């Protein structure tokens, strides 16, 4: 184990995979000379040269599509899209092409592509630069979408994504780049499609991913200290496929769930998780599944407005209390307690 930042884990992993496989190369805006807007690719141009660390023009559709085409011929491009907001400019290439090529042509061409891109609000970047639109991609069969929350997962999921023969959207978060954690020294890939129970508990299941996995863990710790609550925390890690069995197993044990998301509520990932629980654990629920999500507005610049719009630790704590109150009322009514 080595303790390092999320950023360092990504950088070390990119470098190691490039050393391991000469088909792996990087392309994106400002990743070479400028060393990346968030410095994930710092030093890689100097080490690997322009062929494998390729600065592109500002042309998301063009260079993302070119990466898909290169992947069809067997290369393993890792695209950096500066923020997930700009991926909308490449939506046609990602959704209509990367996701479809393997199936639409009867399995004749694979697309071993990784798109790394950060999302996340809270940086006062305003409405167009603060979104978490991974949901758009998680909706699409043919794509895989992973969202690590720790440096260890950043490493193991990035290895898995690069070695996978399908297009993988690898979601990063601006607020997590400087967070630290222990990272295993070996290069074992994670299994895409698996969530992690990061804290075992019996009173309620708290579900999040990326930055919200941290908020969930913080809430669980705080409520253990303040109220003696025993909360189970699930970090989804993979948004497509979604690990439904892990969610269901947990809720069957805890009988209550709160989903936390850094995104708008309506039609969101939380809605999918709630529907999953309704389908798979309806008879086990002692309270409605509660979702804590962003206010449904274009995210404002002003700090006071931005803070109000984003889900906070207190918002989650309130939702947990209200859900457990509902559980208590139900138990009183049916006479279990």
């Amino acid at each position, binding site marked *: 184990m080595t303790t390092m930042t999320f950023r360092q884990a990504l950088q070390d992993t990119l470098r190691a995979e490039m050393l391991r496989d000469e088909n792996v190369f990087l392309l994106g805006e400002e990743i070479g000379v400028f060393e990346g807007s968030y410095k994930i690719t710092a030093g890689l141009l100097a080490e690997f040269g322009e062929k494998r660390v390729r600065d592109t023009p500002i042309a998301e559709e063009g260079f993302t599509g070119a990466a898909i*085409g290169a992947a069809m011929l067997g290369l393993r491009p890792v695209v950096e899209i500066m923020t997930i907001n700009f991926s909308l400019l490449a939506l046609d290439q990602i959704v209509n092409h990367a996701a479809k090529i393997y199936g639409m*042509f009867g399995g004749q061409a694979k697309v071993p592509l990784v798109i790394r891109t950060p999302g996340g609000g809270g940086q006062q970047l305003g409405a167009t630069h603060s979104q978490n639109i991974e949901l758009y991609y998680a909706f699409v*069969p043919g794509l895989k979408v992973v969202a690590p929350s720790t440096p260890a997962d950043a490493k193991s999921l990035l290895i898995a994504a690069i070695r996978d023969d399908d297009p993988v959207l690898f979601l990063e978060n601006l607020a997590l780049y400087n967070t630290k954690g222990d990272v295993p020294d070996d290069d074992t890939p994670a299994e895409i499609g698996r969530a992690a129970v990061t804290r075992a508990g019996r009173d309620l299941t708290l579900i999040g991913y990326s930055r919200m996995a941290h908020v969930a863990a913080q809430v669980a710790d705080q409520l253990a200290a303040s109220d003696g609550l025993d909360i189970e925390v699930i970090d989804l890690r993979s948004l497509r496929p979604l690990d439904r069995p892990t969610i269901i197993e947990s809720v069957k044990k805890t009988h209550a769930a709160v989903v936390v998301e850094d995104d708008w509520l309506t039609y969101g990932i939380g809605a999918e998780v709630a529907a999953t629980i309704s389908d798979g654990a309806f008879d086990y629920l002692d309270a409605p599944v509660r979702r804590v999500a962003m206010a449904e507005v274009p995210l404002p610049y002003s700090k006071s407005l931005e803070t109000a719009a984003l889900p906070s630790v207190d918002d989650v704590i309130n939702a947990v209390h209200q859900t457990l109150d509902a559980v208590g009322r139900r138990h009183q009514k049916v006479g279990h307690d």
Partner: protein
Amino acid sequence: MTNQVNAPRKAAGRPVAAKSVKSRAAAPTKRTARAKVAKRTPAEVAALTKVYREMLLIRRFEERAARSYTQALIGGYCHLNLGEEAAVVGLLSALERTDYLFTNYREHGYAISRGIDPNRVMAELYGRIDGVSKGWGGSMHMFDITHRLLGGYGIVGGQIPLATGAALAIDYRGGSEVVMCTMGDGTTNIGAFHESLNIAALWNLPIVYVIINNRLGMGTTVEKSSAEPELFRRGAAYRIESARVDGLDPLAVAEASAKAVSAARAGRPYLLEVVSERLRGHSVVDPAKYRSEAEVVQLREHDPVVTFGAQLVRDGVIDADAMAAIEHEVTARIDEAAAFAEASPAPDVATLFDYTYATPVANDSRRLPGQPLFDPAPLPDPGEDQ
């Protein structure tokens, strides 16, 4: 690099004068099509006959596809290469077997000209298991990895970044192949076209972009949709060498294509505009009411298959008996393709989930519409866990 002007400027109507077909015709064998038969070697006669046969094969294939479509044997959309036979055959004649081809959704003829068995092309139209894309693609999404036809794309312009990336992969590996990427005239207004040409020029990629200008994007004319209607001139914005050629003359197209491919093989992307005709509507179901009667009459005069066949007879390259024999053989070939397609089984529903992912993944959904997400579970014990 400079742009070449191979045709007179003309604001509207057929941008390339029909007479230029003859004046610029040149066989792959470097002899003009006007030359007397006495001067033709048997190899040259065979080459010209092959071009004609291939054009006729595409023509009869597309006519059969239209018929099968109206008989509801073919579903979805069905865009035909009728009128583009000379362009298709001429363009592909310059490619090596190892080169790659990306096209738009109007690509049956390209698949056939690339050497793919017409049986398998027809079977794809019929949505059968023996189709080139195993019945997953249909008319718009023909793909054959062994013939290096890398699709058939239904989204206008979607193929252009992909083809550019394929050229990037060739360059990355130091290969000698080239990529040819065809598109319609309407496609030159989409962002992907401009982003891709810019990238190809910056990185010196081995790619030929081909605009098949049939003068109509569905029902909208080039003049109404493109501020620079001489589309090949758009290459200048990216310092990409470009040219325009008469797409009704297979030999002129072959010559222009060879030049373009040779530039690309030397690492210089190329933009070739092929001025062609679409003899029918945008797709089989389009009656093309936006065309005048005079235009339709003129179209028939421009029919490249008829024109080229007549030219070969007139020049004594081929006689009437041989023409009839080719017609007979091609018709039989198309009959065989249709029979093969009809006899081919539909894909097994059990294979529905086989092509979502190339790498199997945990918790992948394999649920049919009527199936629940979870098997019905026994009710929990009311006393459990409380």
